[in-house]
């Protein structure tokens, strides 16, 4: 299940999008990347990803709002909130999002969380 799993990556910064896509692809995942909510919802509908990674602050819209919309479409999909801010960590963990990860150049935490969530499902 974990390998070849489909991952939706929502990130408005191109350089980061490219980096995550590359790293996750390196690990064998199929990565669908979206730079905004509209693209993300389309991917959800079209490709039924197994997991979604959302940046909270997207240019022009709110990642949390997007999270609500995604849940409306598919409430089973594990969601990782991925952000530069660490302040909301305690607020969101265990509520709607399945994980909350602060962005870091060291992606081991992200990778580990993806693995665990996919295995859980």
């Amino acid at each position, binding site marked *: 299940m974990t390998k070849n799993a489909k991952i939706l990556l929502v990130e408005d*910064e191109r350089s*980061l999008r490219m*980096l995550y896509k590359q790293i996750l692809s390196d690990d064998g995942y199929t990565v669908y990347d979206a730079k905004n909510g509209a693209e993300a919802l389309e991917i959800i509908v079209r490709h039924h990803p197994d997991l979604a990674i959302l940046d909270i602050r997207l240019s022009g819209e709110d990642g949390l709002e997007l999270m609500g919309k995604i849940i409306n479409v598919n409430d089973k999909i594990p969601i990782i909130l991925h952000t*530069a*801010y*660490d*302040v909301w960590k305690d607020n969101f963990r265990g509520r709607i999002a399945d994980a909350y990860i602060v962005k*870091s*150049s*060291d992606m081991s935490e992200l990778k580990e969380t993806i693995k665990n969530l996919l295995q859980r499902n």
Partner: protein
Amino acid sequence: MRKILLVDDEKIMHDLAMAYLEREGYNIVSAFNGKEGLNMMLTERPDVVLLDYMMPGLNGEEVYQELCSNPKYKAISKTPVILLTANGCDDSLKTRLLRQGVLAYLQKPFGLRELANIIENIFIINDMRRDNQLLKRAVRTSRDIITQVVHNAPVGIIATNRSGKITQINRHALKVLEAATGQSASELSILENDELRNTFFYEGVSYVLSLGKPWLREVLFWSPRFAVRSVLNVHFVPMRTGNTGSVDGTIGIIEDITEKQKAQLERMILSNISQVMQEARNIDEVLQLLLTAATAGQGLGFTRAMIFLYDEEKQILKGRLAVGPSSSDEARRIWEELSHENIEIDHFLRKYGRFGKENSAALNQKVRGITIPVDSDCQLVKHFLERKQYRSMAARSRNSFRNAAHSPAQLAALELDEFVSIPLHSPERLWGIIIADNKFGHVKLHQSRIQMLALAAAHAANAMVRLAAFRKIEDDNRKLEKALNELKETQEKLIHAERLAAIGEMAAHVAHEIRNPLVTIGGWARRMAETACQNGEQKEDDPARIIVDEVVRLENILANVLNFTRTNEPQLVQGNINTLIHELCLQLKPEYQKNGINCSMNLQDNLPDCLFDPDQIKQVLLNLLKNSLQSIGPGGRIGIATLLRGRDIEITVSDNGRGIPKSVLDSIFNPFFTTKEHGTGLGLAISRRIIHNHGGEITVHSEPNTGSVFKVNLPVDLKKTDDHNEGPASLQEMIL
């Protein structure tokens, strides 16, 4: 015209005398026997009577005796009488007649010329005698007046002859004289009496007698051996009699101005007391002044004075301060000391406090131990409550005055005899009472002195009112000042908090903006390094690896910055700081051992539990311990201690490292301030934030090259509140 009565039985005498004497200008009336003569003396009132000795019936002597002795002739008994005697009359008769008062006699036969001369002489003598009597009467009257003036004069008057012997002295002068000599003697020589040798009597009299000039002394302080001191004005002047102008004696005028001086002094004392009291800085000073004024020898003149202050709440009068000797031995000693110094009144004020603290210790101690309940039924307390003076008269017997009706039993130790108590009061308050007496002084209380004391007490009460008002103003001022300081402090804290908030906002923004590129750079570098590793191309100095490490370092800094800007409420749990420190030290032990650091713990036993966030406090202590570690070299010492100080737990972290320069000591808690090469400058700022959020305080004491001591105080009784934030209210709000 002068009238002459001739009493003679011979007719021829009448004719001859009439013929001659009428020519001489006299009016002659005639009687021919003694009885007729006496009758005519009454009716005619002659100026001279010529009385024949040898007459039938009454002879001349008998007529004269009748004239002098019979009250019937009293009005004319002094009429000059010339007796005409017969030839051969013996001398004894003449002598007898003259002795009886007959002015002259003529022996028959005599010439008419001779008769006229004698009559003329008689008139002259008679005139002289009358003048003389008038003069004598006048002199006597004058002398009486002078004597009365001298004796009734309100001043002392003394007169001496030229050798200094007293010739006249009145009672005032005598009193002064006797005070010096100790004996009752009005007839002595001032210049020869040893007791007077060093007195103004000697000085004045000898000056006047030798130089003939007046001698004057005004306001002379007179301390006689045998009486109390007094103040005199003395004036000796030369007395000159006759025309020679030489000095025949002296007259001295001695005026006792003691009372006048005292009154003046009293006014001066009162005005001085009032003035000095106005300058007093506290109530004890006012009381001390009042007591000093009351007991100063030349002032109000009480020997002992004591003050009891009224405690309205407890309903008692409590002994506060006393001045005066505590025994007659002590009194004698003090007065001997004082009398040797011979203080004059005008020096008195400078001698304030003669019975001051050093001389009053025993009495003071006694008085301070006395508490009088004001429900006592004695006169003293009753009068006090009615704001009245109370004067206890000297006792008739030694037991009656200590009777509870006069003074409360608590005052028995003071052995009050005759005393006065005066309330210290102002319209709105009863302050207390001053009790004064003349114990050991053996002088009765003087009403004028009591009035003075009452006035002084009124001044004292005024001063106390002023001081109380002043103190209230001072208290209010202090409160205002405190409030102002608190306001300033709060304002500064607010400014500080606002500044921190601004810094936090900026830092959060920058951190966010930097984090994404860093993740990109670091992520790609990491991938490159890992790819190289997988391809077996790993090199120790792989630039990709270097980038990875540096990015990690930058990310750590960002984490710190964001950590600081976050306002985490402490998650308070009940726990023991000592336990936390034990864990911490266990955790750090390997690092200490590696660096050869000696870490000592000195934790207080039974330290009470308190509410704190273990993670945050741990973070603070870890920060302090790591700072210490960095500041000391191998072999250095670190100490950590706890102590319960009041209701605070004090945690001390000390080291013997290089210390913190004084110039930066004030800045070390500021965010982004650092002395380290790779520090973020946030460790201590975060620590302080955490401690403040716990309602505590963190302080530092440091000496360069000696070491630093950080003290963290945490309140034992911290309650969970939301008031400890001081950074940005909520970063969440700020960013969302």
